[in-house]
């Protein structure tokens, strides 16, 4: 009984380590990420690809209203998995930091700098009494001085840089697929194909309407979102997914 009470205490205060050095609330926040539908990011020499599965719980919901990928500034975007409302807070924080960089230096914010601003912000919620961690992981992708960069920000507030990364439901299987199929020299279209194939590992009824794909290519340095038609073409070529509703 005594032991059980102690266990509960480590559960509740996120500023308290368990005797074996774990922060249970941070680990639970990672579970929340695992419950969200998946997002993937792929880096190619020509740019970065962000893709997300907008799984719907009802045919009546407007798929457009499910926000999984967000533009942060013209040259950088974020894909998310986990609590949507938590993600929105971090996305807005990131957007503000991008504009602070413009006000302060008149320069576009670097993808690494942006990620670290966000992860430093996330970290403070793992050490502050009365707060809870963010139940979301972000994939931050963009172009910095002509170089494509891809980062992950997890609920502990640790930044990682990746060549290709999956977060959310089925993360292990999707990541396994990315590890097997990743090609360092792929062009941007190949990166989009890999991202879609990776999402299809977990979602068997992938259709163009329920997938969101955005890119930042090194030439234009612009965040762009693919149209449903463009995604349909990629899916048809790959011969994956169900019928599109169009």
């Amino acid at each position, binding site marked *: 009984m005594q032991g059980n009470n102690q266990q509960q205490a480590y559960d509740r205060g996120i500023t308290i380590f368990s005797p074996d050095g774990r922060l249970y609330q941070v680990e639970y926040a990672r579970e929340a990420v695992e419950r969200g539908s998946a997002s993937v990011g792929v880096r190619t020499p020509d740019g970065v690809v962000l893709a997300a599965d907008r799984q719907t719980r009802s045919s009546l919901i407007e798929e457009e209203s499910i926000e999984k990928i967000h533009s942060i500034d013209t040259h950088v975007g974020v894909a998310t998995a986990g609590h949507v409302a938590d993600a929105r807070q971090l996305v807005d924080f990131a957007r503000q930091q991008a504009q602070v960089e413009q006000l*302060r230096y008149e320069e576009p914010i670097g993808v690494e700098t942006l990620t*670290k601003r966000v992860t430093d912000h996330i970290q403070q919620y793992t050490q502050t009494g009365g707060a809870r961690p963010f139940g979301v992981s972000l994939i931050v992708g963009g172009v910095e001085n002509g170089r494509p960069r891809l980062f992950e920000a997890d609920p502990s507030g640790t930044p990682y840089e990746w060549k290709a990364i999956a977060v959310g439901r089925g993360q292990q299987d999707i990541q396994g697929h990315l590890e097997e199929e990743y090609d360092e020299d792929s062009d941007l279209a190949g990166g989009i194909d890999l991202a879609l194939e990776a999402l299809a590992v977990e979602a068997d009824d992938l259709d163009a309407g329920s997938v969101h794909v955005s890119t930042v290519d090194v030439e234009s340095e612009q965040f762009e979102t693919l149209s449903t038609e463009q995604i349909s073409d990629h899916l048809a070529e790959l011969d994956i997914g169900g019928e599109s509703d169009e």
Partner: protein
Amino acid sequence: MSNSFDGMHPYEPEIGSFEDVEAGTDEDVTAKTGTTTVGVSTEDGVVIGTDRRASLGGRFVSNKNVQKVEQIHPTAALTLVGSVGGAQSFIRTLRAESNLYEQRRGKPLSIHGLATLAGNFARGGPFFAINPILGGVDDEGSHVYSIDPAGGVMEDDYTVTGSGMQLAHGTLEGNYDPSLSIEEAEGLVASAVYAASERDTGSGNGLVVATITEDGVEIEEYDDATELISA
């Protein structure tokens, strides 16, 4: 909420904060540089020249050996013009912010970024009567900016600030060429500071030259500006 933890203020230094000093405090009684500071950009780098005199109201020489150009970045330097206290504080603040930027990101701040930061601080801070020149070299080449007391930031091929500015400009006009070598630019800058030192009571007592290339900043002092002027 989203700003409650660590939102950075875009117009203030991260280290320390601006003192609450009223405008005008620096007037009259405090040391002023008077000054002629000249910045010239060339293809190979930037040359900045300044005199060495500090004066009270341009009528009494309070110091004859002031170094009025300081390195603030691996490849940039800033001149002290106007209130000595304001200019020194401005330099310390910019140097700290530039160091912090480089340590965090593993690469130095661009010269345009540094100029923007300097403009923000001049506009929002307690520095008032300062009018420095910023010169530096980065991936995009050589840059010279003048920064005015209200935070105005203007880039040019060459520029002059300080009480001797009109005299020095007279020397530069017609003699500047972007393809000047570093040595030729040093001679031109020395001539401009020399002309101002001869006729402006706020300028004189020799010459300090900062030469900035992609390799860094070198600062040399001369008791007489004519030492650098080729025949």
